[in-house]
């Protein structure tokens, strides 16, 4: 110890590494840090850049078309008169229904699988299958919806209706909600459950009063993801036969649920596939509207989530 320089931390050790070697290696380690940080930054910049280009392009093409008459007119053969009110209303209808169906069913299924049945092969088989269902291509759900909701359940859904579309999309996104619910329930510490049980609470009381409120922010995040997926889906709705030309609005009644419909992605798809260039800007305008609807929807869910977190 007598030979050590008080300015450095050097001392005798069995490692036999002199200070210079250590410092050189340390500089190298810091270099690796910087390289990795730069690569990670590049990944962020790249994805944001692509997104920004897309958004700017869409805005330049479409912002001129987004005005009141675009939002309130029905589709038309003449681009100047065309609007997307029926698609906008259709999207709102379908999304409200999807939310109303998937929230109770998805959260209920997640709670049952996570809190009520014991961890046996049956539960694990269900878990694997639900994960697989989340990865099934959406067109398959369209085919299922066509047979089950449009044809078999015709007396209830009246065929190619808002109800059929919403049920099909609900099936599509249910796995996402169930998985998110289970994940967030799993994140609730077991000590909270034990505390509840030790006070003589039943399973439902523990779940209802303590576990679910703590899991709710995560559940709502899952619902946001699920609805964001559902709002952009086109293929399954085309498969079940959503129309592209809807010159009327569904009634605000149960009967309205059984009326034919269209949604924004289908309307956009329709406009994009037309030969006239004017329709392209309509499509761009439609994309802007779709994005605003999506943002509003997510903002609502985030607002709810923050309220739960308090």
């Amino acid at each position, binding site marked *: 110890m007598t030979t050590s320089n008080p300015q450095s931390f050097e001392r005798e050790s069995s490692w036999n590494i002199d200070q210079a070697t250590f410092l050189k290696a340390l500089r190298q380690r810091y270099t690796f840090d910087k390289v990795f940080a730069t690569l990670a930054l590049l990944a962020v910049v790249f994805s944001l850049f692509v997104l920004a280009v897309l958004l700017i392009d869409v805005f330049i093409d479409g912002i001129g078309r987004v005005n009141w008459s675009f939002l309130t007119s029905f589709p038309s053969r003449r681009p100047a008169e065309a609007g997307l009110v029926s698609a906008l209303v259709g999207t709102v209808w379908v999304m409200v229904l999807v939310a109303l169906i998937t929230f109770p069913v998805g959260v209920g299924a997640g709670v049952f699988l996570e809190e009520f049945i014991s961890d046996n092969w049956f539960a694990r088989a269900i878990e694997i299958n639900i994960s697989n269902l989340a990865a099934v291509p959406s067109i398959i759900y369209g085919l299922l919806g066509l047979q089950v909701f449009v044809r078999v359940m015709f007396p209830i859904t009246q065929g190619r209706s808002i109800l059929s579309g919403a049920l099909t999309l609900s099936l599509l996104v249910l796995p996402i909600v169930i998985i998110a619910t289970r994940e967030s329930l799993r994140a609730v510490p077991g000590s909270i459950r034990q505390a509840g049980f030790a*006070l003589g*609470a039943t399973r439902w009381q523990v779940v209802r009063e303590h576990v679910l409120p703590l899991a709710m922010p995560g559940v709502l995040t899952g619902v946001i993801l699920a609805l964001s997926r559902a709002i952009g889906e086109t293929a399954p709705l085309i498969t079940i036969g959503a129309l592209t030309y809807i010159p009327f609005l569904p009634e605000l009644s149960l009967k309205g649920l059984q009326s034919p419909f269209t949604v924004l992605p289908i309307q956009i798809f329709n406009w994009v596939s037309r030969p006239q260039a004017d329709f392209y800007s309509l499509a761009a305008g439609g994309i802007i509207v779709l994005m605003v609807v999506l943002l509003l929807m997510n903002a609502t869910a985030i607002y709810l989530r923050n309220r739960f977190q308090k």
Partner: protein
Amino acid sequence: MISDSMNQTLTEAALRAQNVFVYYGSTLAVRDVTLDIPKNKITAFIGPSGCGKSTILRCFNRTNDLISGARVEGKITFHGRDLYAKGVDPVEVRRRIGMVFQKPNPFPKSIYENIAFGARINGYQGNMDELVEQSLRSAAIWDEVKDKLKESGLSLSGGQQQRLCIARAIAIEPEIILMDEPCSALDPISTLKVEELMQQLKERYTIVIVTHNMQQASRVSDKTAFFNAEATDKGGKVGYLVEYDDTSTIFSNPKQEYTRDYVSGRFG
């Protein structure tokens, strides 16, 4: 069993375990435990890690039921009634036999709600404000929290949280309070407060405490059970009860050599 003291029959047993075996799946965790927990006394379970003292404690209010694969054999009676008989509702058992855990686990809700929850779900009809105050007073924490009942239970210090958990447990007026290493996450001053509290509580409640701290066992308890673990052929460990007697006997004049070694700090 190995050492039933004579005076055990003089006090009424609140809980009686007879030849209790506990399995997790196919693994035997604790074998052949027989002991009586005397009423209105503090009984301490001591022993090295993995000796099954917490496992036995959890059998008393059927919290082992919540662990999948756990199985209890033998007989545990509470006022002569078999806790594991058919038709016995574990929820009712837990309502009579409360529990305080190793790590303070208040609900992430207000202090008031932490106390009121158990009463509400069990159908308490009386004045809730009074019950909350009385429970907090009994747990010697009222003065510290009376001005912030609406604040989260998590805003309290660790020691306060643990006393809140005790208050929560006694709010539903159980007969027995099981404490699973209640002070292991607390500093010495908080520990002392909880120990003083236990002395007050034993007037009205029967307390069973699992502790790693032998000084604590000797300070607070009336009876002490020493558990040990022995290796099995398969490489696992099985816990068993070595000796159960008055605390003074266990610490000054134990009958078993294992016990003497353990309480004198020679192993474990």
